[in-house]
């Protein structure tokens, strides 16, 4: 099991690194997909099967495809970027922040008691429990989520279609 954990972690970290480092935008999204699949593997390893499947369905099937569509609509189809376009003006600030945050989190986690905990028999939440919880204890957030998703759907369509509406 530990080997699987380390392999999955390597896949995830490499996918994330390539997703932000590669020069070709489509390659970036493809390695982002690798990252999503690695995370889904972690969920399966942690016995969260439902969430793993949802991760693949939503992130790989919808979000990544949406990103590919956006690239096709906003770039040359090859997705290549010129040499000067890759990094923003204050790139050193971003990298410095990231390194500092990583170092701080590392130091905190290394010192903390919490980090030594081993799994206590592994949690199990069945689909039935999730479904029941969603319509009893969590019904208000659930409904709020439905409203949010509807608003996001309509909002995204309106924002992307703005020009067409104005032209009429």
């Amino acid at each position, binding site marked *: 099991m530990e080997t699987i954990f380390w392999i999955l972690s390597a896949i995830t970290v490499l996918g994330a690194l390539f997703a932000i480092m590669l020069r070709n935008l489509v390659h970036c999204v*493809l390695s982002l997909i690798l990252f999503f699949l690695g995370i889904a593997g972690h969920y399966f390893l942690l016995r969260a099967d439902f969430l793993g*499947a*949802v991760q*693949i*369905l939503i992130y790989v*099937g919808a979000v990544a495809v949406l990103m590919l*569509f956006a690239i096709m609509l906003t770039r040359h189809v090859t997705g290549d970027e010129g040499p000067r376009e890759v990094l923003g003006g204050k790139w050193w600030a971003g990298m410095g922040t990231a390194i500092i945050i990583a170092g701080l989190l590392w130091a905190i986690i290394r010192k903390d008691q919490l980090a030594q905990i081993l799994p206590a028999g592994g949690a199990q939440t069945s689909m039935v429990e999730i479904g029941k919880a969603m319509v009893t204890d969590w019904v208000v957030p659930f409904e709020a989520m439905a409203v949010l998703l509807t608003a996001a759907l309509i909002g995204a369509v309106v924002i992307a279609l703005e020009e067409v509406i104005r032209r009429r």
Partner: protein
Amino acid sequence: MAIPILFVLSVFLGIFAYTTLVERKALGRIQNRFGPNRVGRWGILQPIADGLKLLIKEDIVPRRADQFVHFLAPVIAVIPSILLFSVVPVGTRLVPVDLNIGILFAFAVSTVSVLALFMGGWASRNKFSLLGAMRAVAQVVSYEVPMVLAAVAVVMAVGSLSTLRIARAQSGGILNVTNWFVFRPWGFVGFVLFTIGAMAESARTPFDIPEAESEIIAGYHTEYSGFKFALFQMGEYLASIAMAGITVTMFLGGYNGPGSGPGWVGGLISMFWFFIKLAFMIVLNIWIRGTWPRVRVDQLLGFAWKVLLPMSIANIVAVGMWHYLTFRPLAWVATTLWLVLWFVTLSKLAATENVAPRTYRYAS
């Protein structure tokens, strides 16, 4: 665990090989010609000849293509299609893997195949490939929504996502037949929706605009030759066979049929019924392919969003009514009326404006 998986893999790959032959023969009969009949009697060795030919063909990669992605796409096209078979229960004693998230797993895996189409089309650096890829992505993403919602109806009725539980819920009744979900109002509507969705998802002919020969050569696999092309075809066929298997499991009673049961004899009979139903679905697909003309892009997307999606949501409401009206005759009448009402309304709304009678300038 290993034996069912090996069995299922080899059997389904064999079915794939002979589906290509049956398809060519059947299309030949529909179009009033013979189809392949030279290799072996009735062309029975044709799939082997095709495989050999594609194996030893030259593999051409365009010079400007993105080499790595171009190589990766056909591989990714096959993997999800094979993974789909792992959740299809073939018989009462032959279930490859009983996941408790079976149906969700099937949908999650089948979405990954979109990426293969996109990668293949994009990496070829060919405008026809790219157009085919964009069409494929738009089509698969739109048809997935009504398909998932049609499956939600079944999941609601059974109360489980496991394919084995869904198949078990359809046993019993008269001759193990009357409890199939296709013999319920909501089940019938769900079956039609799911079949249309599955056909569109695997880009079969009425919905094959991603590879429409008369418009964009061969779509996303224009630049593929040799065994990579064969892998694309294989992925497509395997996905449509697997989707047929899932349709059978969810609506046509799975492995249930007269004589199926938990024992060894019953298990063998249940496998027989499963494969009969699978063959029926495959032939239905071929028949539809030979009969219907290709739809246009706008018709395709409009149909998914304006007809299939509202209909599948209405179907979910129908399942709810079915669940709460415990007096069965009343439930039958109410759900049928509800679904017919929706069907009539939607077909009225979706009807295109009257097309003027065509005037022929030269030939009349």
